[in-house]
């Protein structure tokens, strides 16, 4: 509990980013595992990058709580900062790849011509499309929050 009390706003922001990234992975996994247009439509490296981003954010928070001095403190500060930068970059990669992979499919589901729209817009396909959009939203939020976290220190200044 003492450690948590020392969390700065930045640490909490970073934690929220990590949680959102984790939610993204879950939404993604559920989405491609459920019946519908995007079933089994895996996006290359998305899960790996997302998990790495979560790990980076959590590691940054942990390192940010270390009370060190001298060269060790500097080294830890550099590693922690690098992790904070890496995490939103990974999440950005995930988001860009997801959008690229899903654009055609979403267009097909929502903008097919009237002749086939009823065939295409099955409940399963619409649920699948909604899941993908939710996945994109989660990733975008995680990315923005992750970026916000990089502007902050992760431990409260001691009085």
């Amino acid at each position, binding site marked *: 509990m003492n450690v948590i009390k020392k969390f700065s706003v*930045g640490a909490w922001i970073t934690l929220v980013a990590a949680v959102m990234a984790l939610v993204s992975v879950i939404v993604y996994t559920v989405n491609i595992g459920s019946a519908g247009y995007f079933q089994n439509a895996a996006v290359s490296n998305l899960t790996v990058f997302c998990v790495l981003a979560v790990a980076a954010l959590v590691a940054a928070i942990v390192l940010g709580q270390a009370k060190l001095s001298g060269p060790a403190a500097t080294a830890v500060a550099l590693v922690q900062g690098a992790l904070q930068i890496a995490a939103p970059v990974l999440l*950005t990669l995930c988001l860009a790849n997801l959008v690229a992979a899903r654009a055609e499919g979403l267009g097909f589901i929502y903008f097919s011509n009237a002749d086939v729209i009823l065939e295409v817009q099955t409940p399963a396909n619409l649920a699948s499309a909604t899941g993908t959009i939710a996945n994109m939203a989660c990733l975008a939020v995680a990315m923005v929050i992750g970026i916000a976290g*990089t502007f902050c220190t992760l431990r409260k*200044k001691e009085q």
Partner: protein
Amino acid sequence: MRAKSFAPVMRGVAAVMACVLVLAIVGAGVADTFRTRIDDALHTQSYVTNTDPDSARFKSDYATIDEMIAAAKALAIREGEEGTVIMKNDNGALPLAEGGSVALFGLAAYAPYPYTAGDLKAGNEDAVDLLQALTDAGLKVNETVRDFYLEKVLNKHTEEVPNRWTGELETQVAYDNIYVAAPGDMAQYQIVEVPPEKFGELGAPADWKSSIDKASTTGICVFARGAGEGNTYAPGSALDFAGNATGKDPLALSDDELAVIDAAKETCSKVVVLINSGNTMVLKDIAKGGGHEVDGIAYIGVINDYQCTGIARVLTGQVNATGALPDTYVADNASIPAVMNFGGGYYADYEIVARSDDPRYPGVEIGNETAGSFGGSNTYNGGHFVVEAEGIYVGYKYYETRYYDSIMNPGSKAGSAKGATQDSAWDYGKEVLYTFGHGLSYLDYTQTLKRVDVDKTPEGNVTAVVELKNNSSQDGSFLAQLYVQQPYTDYDRQNGVEKSAVMFLNSAKVQVPAGGSVEVTITVPAKYLASYDYTNAKTYILDAGDYLFTAAPGAHAAVNNFLAHQGKTAADGMDAEANGAVVSWNVNALDTDTFSVENGVKVTNVAETADLNYWTGTNTVTYLSRHDWEGTYPINYNTDVEIKLADSPKKDEWIAELRGETYTIQNNSPATEGGDKGVRFDTTNIQYEQLENVTDAFWDTLVSSITIDEAVGAVIHGGSRSDVLTNVENPIVIQNEGVSGFTATHEETGYRFNVHSQTLLASSFNPELAYEWGRVEGNSGLWLQRYHLWGTGLTQRRTPYNGRNYEYISEDPMLSNRMGYGILQGCADMGILNGPKHMGFNDQEHNRGGVSAYMNEQKFRETDLRCFQGGLEDADGMAVMIAFNRIGATNASHHVGMLQKILRDEWGYTGLISTDMMNNKYYFNAESMVMAGITQVADFGGDDNHITLGKGGVDATWAYISPATVENDSALVEQARQNLKYQLYTYANSAIMNVSTERVDTWWDVALRNAKYVSGALCAATAAAWVILTVIPDKKKEEV
């Protein structure tokens, strides 16, 4: 300390910049993928037209006309090499030994079909005939027999004959005795072959027999059958040399021909017969066990200027024999189920269609009799019909499936007497002489299917790897053929879905070194595994079960592989043991979804009216089904039952259709008149976006400028050349025949490029050769400056009797499909419109201009249309000519289901659609053709794109049409404009415009690139600042 506090800010900015950098890098790639759509959305332009002549989009592969000519000749010779099929080869008859002696018998040996130049044959000065080719190949031709045939029997000379079309006298090659080149339309066919008993009368030397050294001489007998447009063989119509009716099949060898063979057998140690015909012949007498059995039989098709060189190279073994039969050869054509309904006949009360009060033609007595093939009397020509009750079982699909069922499914009554011609019970071994895909190789080899991958998606492929092993001591080329067996399930039995026990998919040729092996990959769209269920799902389905694939030298070997895989042996009735590899691919549940949407369009029934049962309201027609070969074997619906129009519950609708009233001009919706919209058909207006996208707004703007008069007029008077439209200023495009290549003569050299043989290309079984021919054909167009030709035929060879089978590829839809793909893609890659003939069941010439072909929708989609699908959907085919006949009661050129629903919507075809010859205004209905999507009606006129050129300012052909009668039918006028849009779009994408485009940067390309550079630089700078600020020592150490 103050500086140190900036470290998190620098870190944050570095993170932002890193993310922007990632977005810029990934985004640039994504944007490039969706470039066209982004351009549409942002109104930007990524491509500009390059009008520099050196940057033409389509440039010839050849630097000089001499290179072009050499390429055409080389291709024609390859057709002979790859297309010659060794059907029978016993006693070492073939290959002929180098320097060996031969004696040539038969008129066609010295004047192969066709012997006159024209559409079918180029007739260039350096053409090589069979005699010359065999001599060039090093064979010694018996001079006594040669001189007798050339000088006494044939006596080549010239005659003045009237041109079929113009009536002008032309000088043509003629002979004293020659086979009949045109069989006529269901007429008696005289088989002109001089029997040996006449040799003496004609002046043969008395010692001609002794002039042949029997021990060292091979007799080569060549027999031809003529063919031609408007021609149809009639079963039982043969006349002999003396002109006496024999009652025999005109496609069977006559007694005179058999006598020639006997003379050759008497005087030569071995005899080889060459079949010089585009129509499959009946060879029972000379095949194994026949009364006049010969040592060898080879198919040489219909030959052109140079193919004989290639044929001779095969006969002498200079190249390995790799050709295969594109059709099944049977012991008796009467065993073919399609022949049960061939030619057609009248409805019992066809006269009730006739009328004298048709409001479109006041005062005109319009009958309903058949008309001549080239038009003539005032008639709707809707009195004749034929029922294609055989369904999908055309050619080998019938014989091989019945053979398979005779072993696997005895309950299907495959062995019943129905359809048997050789015995009291049906027996494959007696009915079939040589099956589809059969062709002997000189060099011993094996083909083994190694693996198959099926991508079960609408755009997916079947990818098969076949190992070809050359077991001989010579290098050589070999043919691999891929076959599939789809599961035939209870669902199919219940819903009338038919499946052939074996289906050809595709083939490939490859060179294999002596003793070596090579793996060749064969691909074919996976959609062709699906079957059309017209009764229940009403779409394409994939049945649950095992799909079996194999590689085999012919359909029969393939079906035996399947039987062996399923545990059958000779003890079960197989006629040969088989051990060819079979690869299984399983579908675990009936799939009615994957192939039910094509090109974004729902695939469902569009041709229910093609079924005679639709009109009679009862199950009048029983379609051939493998669940009961005996009970469903076709009867003749013209003679065995009486079909009366008046008995139909849809009598009025049926009669209206037979009168061509598919569409009636409306009078309640004013059309918008055209006018100058400030755009033109030119390179200023037509840029990359317009070339890429027929839905680009430019095209609608362009065609909206066409006046009502010209919009309708240009479609219904499409002619043999396009006309210049006011406000559009499009180029004139001249159409060219023909099926052997451009018939136009190259002005400088006098060379003619129609040197191709459709029949030998077909029997090459080599889609790559088809592509190469298409490319040569396209190149010749560039040299001739002709850009549009009717340059191939893809209609299914439903029976052997069709007089135009020489223009078509095969009895098999998929061989036609793959060959069509190659030819059309080759031409398209050179920017040439090559329109295949005649889509929509033009499978008999007899009464082609009106006969109703009735069928169910599975046949409709899986037979003739599939022949065209490869070239028009899978390849970039740019033109097509529609069948002359009716589909059901509907003129094929009025058929909205075929042209709009399938061709345009399902296949996504954006090219030109032409009718065949418009020779009967009562049969071809102008407004119905417009509404069906026809872009040009072939009326052979020029500068006649108006509906005001007749007396009183009405249309010159359809007098009830004028600007006043169509101006209140906006749907008709707009459809005409849409049809012209496709035609203009196709011209723009062809060598007619021949402009290239080049990529330029849009503002968003620049923005993305700059974002990449700026964000990269800022990322590096702020990251460096963050590191420095973190590392530098401070007076008071802070915690991070």
